[in-house]
């Protein structure tokens, strides 16, 4: 009923289908609400190397990496399909933060030898990369925006500044940091363990963490991956891919809540009736179903349109749509469950909280609607 398969041509391609199914099998055996519950709030429960090994096994680490760099070379749309399954299973594997976002960024830099080297290392499972660019609430990247600074010192580069909301920093071996160098944007690859890199982990509503990272460190010159406007363009592109993947994840999360809610309505009785026989509740369930479906067919088209000129539009449309409907379904899911939906023992709350966190990351619905307005204005002016 909620499958993206019928909504996307890419999803029906046999090799894509195969990796999605392998992911499903992996998730069924290794992840899910119980794991998520157990790890929440535990600062020691950072994703470990073993987890990345398992992801590599089912093809998740290499899915987006070009074949000549040792990956499977799938288009970015596949990330949406995989993230949807991760969301549905409430997996805590850092797929979007440590795989989709850095991969898409490095790939978007084009023919860049240092980026390719890093990609190769990532595909093999050795390097784990996070992207550190925000210093405040999410905004599109620009060279003027950051307070952090890179300066040349001797035969090295000195990075100073504080990056916030760095998702996936805890498991990372390297951070890709955006900061200006001599007045233009630059992307620096900083080892997470370097002297002068201080991480402050922040507990989130869902029991996971992201980090504020303070940099006052000197790295070698070859840590400079790219400089100039291409950094900004590549990051904006990568953020679109990441937001598409997040939209897939949010879609998976909300459809799971909807399934739980429909099951509950069918089995729980009150006033001598199954709850689901009450027409007012039926109509509300239909409204939730309808909102999810509008997201489903939008996502399907978006999956098929990644890496085209329509990608940015689809990214913001998908994030706005799925964040809104996920929050609505989360809220109504609690309400339709009644008191049990408000109790921590029941798994529903885990999904709800995950939705809160994932919808806030990389811009909420209102941010993305504003961005779409600016596209419209630009189009009208052209």
């Amino acid at each position, binding site marked *: *009923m909620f499958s993206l398969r*019928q*909504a996307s041509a890419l999803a029906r391609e046999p090799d894509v289908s195969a990796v999605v199914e392998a992911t499903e099998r992996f998730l069924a055996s290794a992840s899910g609400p119980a794991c998520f519950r157990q790890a929440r709030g535990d600062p020691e429960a950072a994703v470990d190397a073993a987890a990345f090994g398992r992801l590599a096994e089912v093809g998740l680490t290499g899915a987006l990496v070009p074949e000549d760099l040792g990956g499977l070379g799938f288009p970015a749309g596949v990330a949406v399909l995989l993230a949807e399954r991760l969301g549905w299973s409430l997996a805590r594997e850092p797929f979007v933060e440590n795989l989709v976002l850095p991969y898409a960024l490095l790939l978007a830099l084009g023919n860049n030898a240092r980026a390719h080297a890093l990609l190769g290392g990532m595909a093999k499972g050795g390097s784990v990369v996070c992207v550190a660019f925000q210093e405040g609430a999410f905004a599109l990247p620009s060279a003027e925006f950051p307070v952090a600074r890179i300066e040349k010192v001797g035969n090295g580069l000195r990075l100073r500044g504080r990056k916030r909301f760095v998702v996936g920093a805890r498991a990372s071996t390297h951070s890709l940091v955006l900061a200006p160098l001599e007045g233009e944007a630059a992307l620096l690859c900083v080892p997470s363990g370097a002297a002068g890199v201080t991480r402050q982990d922040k507990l989130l509503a869902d029991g996971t963490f992201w980090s504020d990272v303070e940099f006052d460190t000197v790295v070698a010159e070859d840590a400079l991956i790219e400089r100039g406007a291409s950094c900004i363009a590549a990051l904006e592109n990568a953020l679109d891919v990441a937001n598409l993947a997040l939209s897939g994840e949010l879609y998976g999360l909300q459809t799971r809540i909807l399934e739980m809610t*429909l099951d509950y*309505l*069918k089995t729980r009785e009150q006033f*001598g*009736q*199954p709850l*689901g*026989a*009450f*027409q007012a509740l*039926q*109509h509300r*369930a*239909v*409204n939730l*179903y*309808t909102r999810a*479906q*509008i*997201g*489903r*067919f*939008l996502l*399907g*088209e978006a999956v098929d349109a990644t890496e085209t000129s329509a990608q940015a539009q689809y990214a913001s*449309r998908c994030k*706005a*749509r799925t964040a809104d409907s996920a929050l609505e379904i989360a809220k109504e899911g609690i309400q339709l469950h009644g008191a049990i939906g408000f109790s921590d023992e029941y798994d529903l709350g885990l999904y709800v909280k995950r939705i809160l966190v994932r919808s806030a990351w990389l811009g909420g619905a*209102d941010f993305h*609607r504003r961005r*779409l*307005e600016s596209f419209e204005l630009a189009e009208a002016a052209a």
Partner: protein
Amino acid sequence: MNALAPIDWNSLSDSDFRAELRGFIEAKFPAHLRNHPRRIPRWEDTREWFGTLSAKGWIAPNWPREHGGMGLTASKLLIYFEEVERWGIPRLYDMGLFMFGPVLIRHGTEAQKREYLPKILSGEHRWAQGYSEPGAGSDLASLRTMAIPEDDHYIVNGHKTWSTFLDDATHLFLLACTRNEGRKQDGISLFITPLDVVGIERRLITTIAGHAELGEVFLDNVRIPGANMVGPLHGGWGIAKDLLEFERINNGSPKLGLYALNQLQEYAKRTGLAADPRFAERFTRLRLDLQDQSCAYRHFCSLLKAGRTPGPEVSLLKIWSTETYQRLAELFLEVAGEEGVEADRVDVPGALAALRLYYRSRPATIYSGSSEVQRNLLAKRVLGLPAPK
């Protein structure tokens, strides 16, 4: 390009197809009909344009090419609607094109298809629907119109209401009971009849928009030949459901909303309202509601085009499109302020559109299965929610 040659429009690129359409429309559509004040202009007003499209082979974008349609894919069909609505082209007498024609193509006999399809395309036959009855509304199972066999005819008695297009329709397709015992649903048949036969009288009903575009049909011992039954005897319920699915796809297209969106956007630009961030916030939500729904519409049209039945899920399209359409009209009327409620101010076309859209968007959530009935259907047939004990 020869319009009558069997062109495969789907082989054109989207932008070429759009350019072709746009060029034709802008060259040929009669300017005085743009943004017409009536939801459905009278036949004498639009027959010329109907004929122009018909001659070009563009009157039935959704029909298969072998029956004289354009055979468009879902994406092309949406472009067709976008261009029509962009230019403010009013609704034609399209009940035969979007509703009855597709049903006849699927369920009619070869003789029926030969007889009726060409005349739908030419506009010679204009169809109205005889479903609702007084006291039945959305509840088809309480149908009271009876068809009693007599030699090779049926004698039909009954009373239909809320038939759109009745003012200038020439033919009626209607549901009637052909069996008295058993489940109501198993004793209904679908008939077709000209409206100018003995025993049929019409009474038009004026809407709150002030137009007598729909009405009642009184059937008093009307003789309908047996050959005018569509589909099997007692099999009308299944065909009616099928027909409702076409109807829901058709009513689930974003075309009505597109027209409203275009009108509101033009008004907002002209008046400077577009620069107001509070307006922009509300407008953008609705624009995206409409735009995102197009994806769902394309999906269901693809299913249909691939010969698959869209299933009861299609009800979500109609709910979403008609409710979005209404919200657009309501926002428009709200921002148009005093000018929005002036009913005859011809010098302010944008604002006047607001009032018209408010009216014409009202029945969209009522006809062809109200939003409430669609929600009941989705709850039961798609979500599998239980009936009360």
